[in-house]
């Protein structure tokens, strides 16, 4: 992808987000002209940019959007919810197109058709005659899907084509080429746009013939506007539909394409003089055809043609007979009809079944569109295609039976319409099997077998590119999210402030200094001179700095060796001095890069106005969304990992938390509920609170449900407080559909939410008051690239424990360790703390070692809400490490959250207390 395109895509996404946001704002202030003008400008710019590239679909939709916004801006159209809906839809579609471009996928015919539909839908809002436009929409959509009933008589049109061209076309069709009739109706303004429709028509792939026709009677020359296009173009081509559609991809709404059945080209033309004198020929010729004597028949035709003047209708018919005979398997039915037609000089109706022509005297059927049957076949193909798609959908949906029944109803209708009633019972039997086994596969198989032709021509539409949710990639297991940032699926560039590390600042008190920098150097506070950098580049820098930190940590060991092994004290001191300098610089660098990775929570928040709007409209609820602290920044990984849990919580709140407006009014609350999402920074954590004033959670009901499900015993049920009961929703397995219907439904997937938050070392607190609302508080670290760990020794091995899990370190005299039910415990400041030997936990046989005063080293760690004492051999210093997730087969070891390289080159295994204990 070239850089210009990458830049365009990145800007397009920003613009789309901007458009979505502005539309939401407009919904609250529909008369804000300034906002409207801004919105127009964004759409206008985006359209202009898309024009730089070859994206006609995108330009078309954006152009329509721009025109609509222009009309709104000038007060011609009033802003409405429908308008917002359509624009949002259109922008979603443009987003899809961007995804497609990014993935280097060509635009499918379906997407092109959708572009036309979107543009028409937008324009329908501008035009006062919306009904006509709406009709045009369905028409245009139909053209693209190939099911159009043409608005012009094809037979008449084909008769315009000279015989020699038709014969050439027939010959091509005989050799397997598809024949298409293209009606191209350019817009009246096309000349002003520099178009040359005749050139366009003549350049159609597989071109055979171009015809023109005037749209209306010509005005007097004095009133004629030469530059207003008044011509329609008809083109006969022998080419694949796809090629032709691609040729007209910039004007798909101005083109009708229909297939031309080869037989329809057989239109004898000429002087019909003569009449009954040919009766003998007809009689003989029919007899020859009946006796399968095609050689004799050909002789008769050849003789007849020599005797006839070439301008006669008869000669034309004879020439067609000659041509038909050139086929490897001449179509005797067609020949017979052509011969019979000589009696009446009426052109045969090729759409009638051939059997009708057995009665030779009356070959002509009532006038009917020659492509009538063709339309039926297309309609059948469409119906079959749709059913095939429907049946190919995954079987796990709850509405599968309905889907099967609908498909069967459609298919049996088709069978009846095409005279295949006998197959209906078989189909119904299959449907019963499909319903019983809950799978659509047998029906799909039957479909392929029963309609093989339709299967052959069925063009399976490319599935629309699903928008890639960037956040999903980061809600991976905890080990994934660490210093090494997994490459995001889409190159979502982060806005990097140009940070000049303050090299002159004092190296002392690194923690304080770090906090200072964090507060003082937010990206949003930096100068507006920002630049966009690919995330991969930042990640690389991050990894390099990680390596440097490890290398730097080797220097104290070096100094130690210089002193103890080589006995050079002086050198050791110098190395230590140098270490201090390098340490300071590396810390600065680390901090600088962390600042670059910081992004505001608005990145996640901005999706909520749309989400809340859509869901609340769908549910018929009224919800006001309040967003606060959008500028609060945290590490990109943290922000991204917030996306899914937050969406989940918001959905839950809308779906189950808020009551319907009438219920709210009855309860004395305002009809519109308030959903507040607030973010703020507290020390080194970012806190997000989601508050709603809905119906809250019924703690008693939760208790009862948990008891019934066997999750808590009777004693617990009586003992636990309401607050504790509310937190039962986090228990995995609590979220069943049964719960949703009985309770407020807060339990839906809340365990998943908690897991996702905990994976990035965050925690979640839920508080709810029945009837008043619910508050969920998420607390996450600001950054997670560097982990501060406490190192401990156990059985002569070093282990790391993240500092945020460590409560305290204590020395416990052997005498103070008591055994309660074979479990060791001790009393710490009036609290019983259970003890576990780290050796035992890790499966090491060695007993814990005490120090000289016969005291155990106990590391008190937090596990959930409880404290637990981990008995180790000795404590060591804390260290900042770059935690690398375990890879390969080791990644299955959940007792470790990762490993880190220490300065002396050893590997420190970092324990995952949550999983281990």
């Amino acid at each position, binding site marked *: 992808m070239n850089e210009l395109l990458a830049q365009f895509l990145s800007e397009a996404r920003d613009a789309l987000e901007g458009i979505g946001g502005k539309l939401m704002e407009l919904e609250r202030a529909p008369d804000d002209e300034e906002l409207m003008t801004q919105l127009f400008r964004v759409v206008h710019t985006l359209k202009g940019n898309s024009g730089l590239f070859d994206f006609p679909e995108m330009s078309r939709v954006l152009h329509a959007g721009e025109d609509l916004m222009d009309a709104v801006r000038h007060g011609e159209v009033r802003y409405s919810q429908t308008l917002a809906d359509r624009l949002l839809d259109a922008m979603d579609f443009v987003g899809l197109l961007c995804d497609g471009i990014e993935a280097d996928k060509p635009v499918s015919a379906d997407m092109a058709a959708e572009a036309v539909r979107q543009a028409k839908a937008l324009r329908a809002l501008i035009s006062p005659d919306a009904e006509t436009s709406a009709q045009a929409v369905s028409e245009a959509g139909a053209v693209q899907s190939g099911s159009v009933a043409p608005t012009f008589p094809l037979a008449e049109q084909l008769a*315009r084509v*000279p015989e020699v*061209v038709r014969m050439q076309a027939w010959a091509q069709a005989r050799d397997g080429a598809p024949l298409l009739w293209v009606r191209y109706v350019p817009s009246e303004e096309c*000349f002003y746009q520099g178009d*040359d*429709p*005749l*050139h366009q*028509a*003549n350049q159609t792939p597989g*071109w055979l*013939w*171009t*015809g*023109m*026709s*005037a749209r209306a009677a*010509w*005005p007097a*020359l*004095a009133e*004629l506007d*030469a*530059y207003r*296009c*008044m*011509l329609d*173009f*008809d083109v006969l081509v022998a080419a694949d539909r796809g090629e032709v559609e691609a040729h007209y991809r910039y004007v798909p709404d101005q083109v009708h394409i229909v297939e031309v059945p080869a037989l329809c080209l057989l239109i004898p033309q000429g002087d019909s003089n003569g009449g009954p004198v040919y009766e003998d020929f007809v009689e003989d010729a029919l007899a020859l055809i009946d006796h399968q004597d095609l050689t004799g028949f050909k002789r008769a035709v050849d003789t007849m043609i020599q005797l006839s003047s070439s301008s006669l209708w008869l000669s034309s018919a004879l020439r067609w007979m000659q041509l038909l005979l050139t086929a490897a398997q001449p179509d005797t039915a067609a020949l017979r009809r052509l011969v019979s037609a000589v009696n009446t000089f009426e052109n045969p109706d090729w759409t009638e079944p051939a059997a009708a022509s057995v009665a030779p005297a009356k070959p002509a059927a009532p006038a009917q569109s020659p492509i009538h049957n063709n339309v039926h076949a297309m309609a059948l193909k469409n119906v079959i295609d749709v059913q095939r798609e429907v049946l190919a959908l995954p079987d796990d949906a709850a509405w599968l039976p309905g889907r099967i029944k609908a498909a069967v109803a459609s298919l049996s209708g088709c069978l009846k319409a095409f005279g295949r009633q006998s197959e209906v019972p078989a189909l119904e039997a299959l449907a019963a099997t499909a319903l019983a086994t809950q799978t659509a596969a047998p029906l799909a198989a039957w479909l392929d077998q029963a309609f093989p032709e339709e299967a052959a021509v069925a063009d399976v539409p490319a599935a629309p590119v699903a928008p890639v949710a960037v956040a999903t990639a980061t809600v991976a297991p905890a080990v994934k999210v660490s210093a090494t940032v997994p490459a995001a699926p889409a190159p979502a560039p982060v806005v990097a402030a140009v940070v000049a590390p303050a090299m002159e600042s004092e190296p002392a008190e690194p923690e304080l200094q770090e906090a200072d920098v964090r507060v003082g150097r937010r990206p949003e506070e930096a100068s507006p001179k920002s630049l966009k950098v690919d995330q991969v580049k930042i990640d690389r820098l991050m990894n390099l700095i990680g390596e440097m930190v490890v290398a730097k940590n080797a220097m104290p060991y070096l100094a130690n060796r210089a002193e103890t092994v080589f006995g050079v004290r002086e050198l050791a001191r110098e190395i230590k001095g140098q270490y201090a300098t390098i340490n300071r610089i590396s810390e600065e660098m680390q901090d600088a890069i962390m600042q670059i990775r910081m992004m505001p929570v608005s990145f996640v928040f901005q999706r909520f106005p749309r989400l809340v709007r859509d869901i609340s409209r769908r549910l018929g609820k009224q919800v006001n969304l309040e967003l606060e602290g959008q500028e609060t920044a945290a590490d990109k990984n943290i922000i991204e990992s917030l996306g899914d849990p937050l969406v989940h919580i918001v959905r839950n709140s809308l779906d189950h938390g808020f009551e319907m407006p009438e219920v709210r009014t009855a309860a004395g609350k305002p009809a519109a509920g308030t959903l507040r999402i607030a973010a703020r920074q507290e020390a080194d954590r970012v806190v997000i609170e989601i508050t709603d004033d809905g119906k809250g959670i019924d703690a008693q009901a939760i208790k009862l449900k948990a008891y019934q499900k066997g999750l808590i015993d009777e004693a617990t049920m009586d003992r636990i407080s309401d607050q504790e009961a509310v937190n039962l929703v986090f228990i995995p397995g609590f979220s069943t559909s049964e719960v949703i219907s009985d309770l407020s439904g807060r339990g839906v997937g809340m365990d998943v939410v908690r897991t996702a938050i905990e994976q990035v070392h965050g925690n979640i607190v839920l508080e709810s008051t029945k009837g008043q609302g619910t508050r969920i508080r998420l607390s996450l670290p600001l950054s997670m690239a560097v982990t501060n760990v406490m190192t401990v020794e156990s059985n002569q091995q070093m282990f790391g424990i993240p500092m945020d899990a460590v409560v305290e370190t204590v020395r416990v005299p052997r005498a103070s360790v008591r055994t309660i039910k074979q479990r060791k415990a001790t009393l710490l400041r009036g609290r019983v703390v259970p003890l576990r030997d780290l050796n035992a936990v890790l499966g090491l046989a060695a007993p814990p070692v005490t120090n000289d005063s016969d005291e155990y080293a106990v590391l008190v760690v937090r596990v959930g809400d409880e404290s637990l004492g981990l008995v180790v051999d000795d404590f060591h210093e804390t260290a900042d490490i770059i935690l690398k997730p375990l890879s390969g087969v080791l990644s299955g070891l959940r007792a470790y959250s990762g490993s880190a390289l220490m300065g002396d080159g050893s590997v420190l295994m970092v324990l995952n207390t949550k999983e281990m204990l």
Partner: protein
Amino acid sequence: MTIEYRDTEVVFAEIVGVEDAEVLLAWLQERSPVQADFSACTHMHPANIQVLMAAGVQVAVWPVAAPLECALRSVFSAGS
């Protein structure tokens, strides 16, 4: 010159562009009837064609270029 204006005939050569339509229209308004000679014309912008159609021009010589000929034949009749 891609267009040569004679007394009762207009002769087209090579590619006749969109910009010629206005002059052609003005010229045709003052004359009737007119014949057109397309023999050396390879392509003509439809703006010109619709001016010729509206003026009821008859074709004296058809173009050699097949696509143009076939398009013109679909709307013009031959001259006397």
